[in-house]
């Protein structure tokens, strides 16, 4: 995907998250993009590693900063005790106008992620994205074992919450499979 095409997808995702009352700080965007790329297979070509609050992409961080440099995205301070939120920048209309096919091609995936993750806080996003990380590495392992793996990676997550996150990711996966079959 070319840079500005990818910008159009990221911009649309951020707008969709904001419509669902997401805080849209960097961590919210990071986890939503992780689901978009890894669960829904939108080809954003970003590398994720296990880092802050679960899977994290330094590529994405760089991409978001460069989109800010180009006024495609901007920062908004909504509460001083939290980091800034991402918002559409001055060139929003230009990008949306230039890439209608790309946006419509991935609209379903963007809305799916925004619908399910938009209203979640950082702690829950960390659990879910780590559960997806584990699922992608050991897809045939049972819920209990994957919950254990989540806890090995993030010891501060309790067993019941780890198990709940694993089940929720499984449900999202099945739901997406059903949508794809329609």
């Amino acid at each position, binding site marked *: 995907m070319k840079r500005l095409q990818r910008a159009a997808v990221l911009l649309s995702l951020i707008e969709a998250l904001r419509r669902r009352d997401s805080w849209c700080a960097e961590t919210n965007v990071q986890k939503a993009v992780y689901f978009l790329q890894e669960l829904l297979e939108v080809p954003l070509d970003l590398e994720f590693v296990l880092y802050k609050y679960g899977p994290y992409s330094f590529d994405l961080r760089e991409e978001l*900063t460069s989109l800010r440099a180009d006024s495609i995205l901007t920062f908004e301070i909504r509460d001083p005790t939290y980091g800034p939120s991402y918002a559409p920048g001055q060139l929003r209309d230009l990008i949306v106008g230039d890439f209608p096919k790309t946006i419509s091609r991935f609209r379903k995936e963007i809305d799916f992620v925004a619908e399910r993750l938009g209203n979640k806080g950082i702690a829950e996003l960390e659990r879910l994205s780590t559960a997806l990380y584990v699922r992608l590495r050991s897809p045939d392992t049972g819920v209990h074992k994957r919950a254990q793996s989540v806890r090995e990676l993030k010891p501060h997550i309790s067993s019941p919450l780890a198990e709940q996150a694993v089940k929720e990711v499984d449900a999202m996966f099945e739901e997406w499979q059903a949508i794809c079959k329609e």
Partner: protein
Amino acid sequence: MEKHFHEIRDAVHVFVHLDTEERRVVDSVAFQRLRHIHQLALTHLVYPGATHRRFEHSLGVMELAGRVFDVITAERNRDSRVRQVFPPSPDALNYWRRVVRMAALCHDLGHLPFSHAAEGTLLPQGMKHHDLSAKIIQSDDMQRIWESVTPPLRRQEVAKLAVGPKDLKGEAFGPWESLLSETIVGDSFGVDRMDYLLRDSLHAGVIYGKIDQYRLIDTLRVLPENNTKEAEPALGVELGGLPSAEGLLLARYFMYTQVYFHPVRRIYDIHLRDFLTAWLGRNRFPTELDDFLRLTDEEVLVEMRKAARDPSHPGHDPADRILNRKHFRLLYERNPDDSAKNPEAGRAVYAAACQEFGDQYVRHDRYAEKEDPADFPVRMRDDRIVSSRAQSHVLKDLPPVNVDYVFVAPEIRTEAEQWLARNRQDIIVQKEKEEDEP
């Protein structure tokens, strides 16, 4: 009596202090090679004083890394909300102090000749100088040094701290390792950055890079990222240190716009890359350590001189342009009006100019800032944690660096300027077509 502590005079820090074990690293082949790698590639062709090398920069980074480590780990400076991240015993703390200083010393070992100028083109796909730094740190030669230290250092930990989680692929970083690496190569307060701003501005004779590193370092703290109970530890500052943090980031901004992205400096980098590619071949830089360590700026300069005199040398044209100041001239640079119509306006000018004059006469240089150094926690006087961007208008409004240059050969400069003046409005709005299948 044998001396165990040593000092080296330094233009920035007055003295760099080191012990015998650290001096063993300084005396190694890999570290001595840095005496022959310019810190700022060919910048001395624009700022004549900027002839300093990676060698003294690396010493300076070690000096600052030790100071930062002492401040952030001092008992009186530990924030109770993130106390669990610190190693429990003094022995462990001493071990990590040594790893931090060694990692700081070694963080640039993998630099190619002329530093960053040609890295993207010459190394195999996906490889960066960081990978070579990690490889050298973990080599058998360096391992002998790590084993001789008391207590012995684990080479993997030195490599992790020297390179950091962003660039050391495939390694999981715990919170403590992430933090320590952040103190060396981090986007906000990495001592690599502090030293290069101070040193580059001193040697270039550009005052913008001057910062109050003393106050800044004294106020650095390990803090929770925000006020939630899930917050991870991060490197931040006391409120009293915020002005010096602002100073650092403003210095960085001005050094980027005035020195690192000076258009003539950038075109010299491009000519250098063209020369190295013509001479060595794309993706062909030696990455076997013995061969890699043999190549410095000096070997490249010798070949460049030869090429400039010999029209049949594959690198003759770029070598001649560098050594005889026939560098390409700026035809177009980014501006707000054009960017509002097309964020890739430079690319449009470049494509049209290539079509008009031939791509051998045109070069394009595009950089939209990728690092985001201005977001870090600030501890208020009442212990609340506040986002730096919320607390500081300077940081909130600090624009990311954004560069878009098109250069043309001097022999077609006038013609190209007239051509652009005639066609500018039509060219700027030419965009790449949207692909159906991304």
